[in-house]
């Protein structure tokens, strides 16, 4: 059951400072409405045990993604496809308001939104991940680990997932004989079939203003929030509105900003990936 969350209190002075800055056309940390915080992407911070990994810092928000690849039986209704699963853990070390336990609705939502953006855009060609149709296929587990929470976990997680999937390598397939597969897990072999990249752009509405990449204070104050997935072809590959309402024209405006900012994020991601 989903219950109205207890919002962490935000000092009245801080709230007033944020809103009055917006009225003057800027934000308390000096950004304009359409600016992201500084972004760093570190590739393969978990080189020995994960098949691919990435650490993304978006301002003070920090997200680590590790990809683990194994061999599984494909889903019965998808015998010719590999398995892709996205999970997110908001571990208690990331925020004073997180408790240990199974993923709550916020973690489930982030994971499912990113899963859909990757799946619907066909970012990864799952058809290339079949080893023996109906019997064996590669399984890709994309685990999102939030390390430090300062707002906009979704965009940081999508960026980290995409970076990790791009650098991930399949273990070596030694042989397929009589329906038996032998895998050498200690040898990294081919890269994953990543066909196009996807990012999400999160916007919030505060005091009637629409801004991108909210920090935690802005997220708490937000009247509404929307995460919009954009792929490298400029298509919309997913939307998830949360919180309160937006007018139809605000929704259209949010999509326009997302397409514009999404292009910038994709450029940054692709530039980082070229360094390997």
């Amino acid at each position, binding site marked *: *059951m*989903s*219950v*109205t969350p*207890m919002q962490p209190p935000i000092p009245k002075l801080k709230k007033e400072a944020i809103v009055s800055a917006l009225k003057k056309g800027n934000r308390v940390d000096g950004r304009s409405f359409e600016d992201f915080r500084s972004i760093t992407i570190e590739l393969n911070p978990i080189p020995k045990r994960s098949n691919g990994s990435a650490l993304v810092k978006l301002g003070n928000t920090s997200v680590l993604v590790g990809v683990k690849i194994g061999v599984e039986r494909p889903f019965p*209704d*998808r015998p010719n496809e590999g398995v892709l699963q996205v999970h997110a853990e908001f571990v208690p070390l990331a925020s004073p308001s997180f408790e240990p336990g199974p993923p709550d*609705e*916020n973690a*489930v*939502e982030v*994971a*499912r939104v990113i899963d*859909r953006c990757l799946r*619907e*855009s066909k970012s990864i060609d799952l058809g290339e991940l079949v080893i023996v149709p109906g019997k064996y296929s590669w399984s890709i587990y994309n685990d999102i680990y939030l390390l430090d929470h300062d707002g906009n976990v979704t965009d940081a997680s999508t960026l980290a997932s995409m970076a990790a999937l791009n650098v991930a390598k399949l273990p070596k397939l030694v042989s397929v004989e009589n329906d038996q597969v032998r895998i050498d897990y200690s040898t990294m072999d081919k890269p994953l079939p990543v066909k196009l990249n996807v990012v999400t752009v999160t916007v919030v509405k505060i005091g009637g203003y629409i801004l991108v990449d909210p920090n935690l204070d802005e997220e708490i104050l937000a009247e*509404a929030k*929307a995460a919009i*997935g954009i*792929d490298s072809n*400029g*298509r*919309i*590959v*997913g*939307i*998830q*509105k*949360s*919180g*309160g*309402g*937006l*007018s*139809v024209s*605000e*929704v*259209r405006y949010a*999509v*326009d900003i997302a*397409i514009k900012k999404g292009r910038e994020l994709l450029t940054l991601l692709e530039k980082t990936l070229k360094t390997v």
Partner: protein
Amino acid sequence: MSSRPTLIGENGLRHDHRRPDELRPIKMEVGVLKNADGSALVEFGNTKVIAAVYGPREPPAKYMLSPEKAIVRCRYHMAPFSTIERKSPAPSRREIELSKVIREALESAIFTELFPRSAIDIFIEVLQADGGTRTAGLTAASLALADAGVPMRDLIAAVAVGKVDGVIVLDIDEVEDEYGEADMPIGIMPSINQVVLLQLNGVMTREEFDIAMDLAMKGVSEIYRLQKEALSKKYMLYTEE
């Protein structure tokens, strides 16, 4: 899984003979349960959803209450017999996510500030699933809240638009959801122009998104009309007496 069916025929009609901008037959009934403070049954074609509201009432635990407003608790749940293969009654990740987005949509309609230190509980049970269950559920929950006399900014009318065989269509069913290119559920408070639920599962261009939004607005206005009709069917009787 069988091979992909033709979703848009040569005559431009859909697999169930609907036009792209046509809703399924819709039925709504308010006040269908005795115990609940408010309830509603909504059918979009073969999709059948029941919603009940309890409250505003005392929350089950003191630590949950808010001194400023009512808390809203919402569960979207599918009956085990509602799906093609039996669904385990344990809450799935999908149900956890949908309970959240539906709760947030309803919460933005309710004047929660009028009921501090109380809880408003909304339970949605999908009895038969044939696509559009979250939008039928949200439509039903909004009616149930009205039936319970909970003050709201507006009713929420919801529908799923989609893209099938490259055509933007209204009120997609399960076949169109499974084999189509996109599913976009939308919930709107029509009189005050507020989009309170919006998801896109699938791929659209910017232009297709605009067409989909326009089509959704059209569908929503018809659903809104039916909601008001369903409410007046129950409550006009009393005013006439």
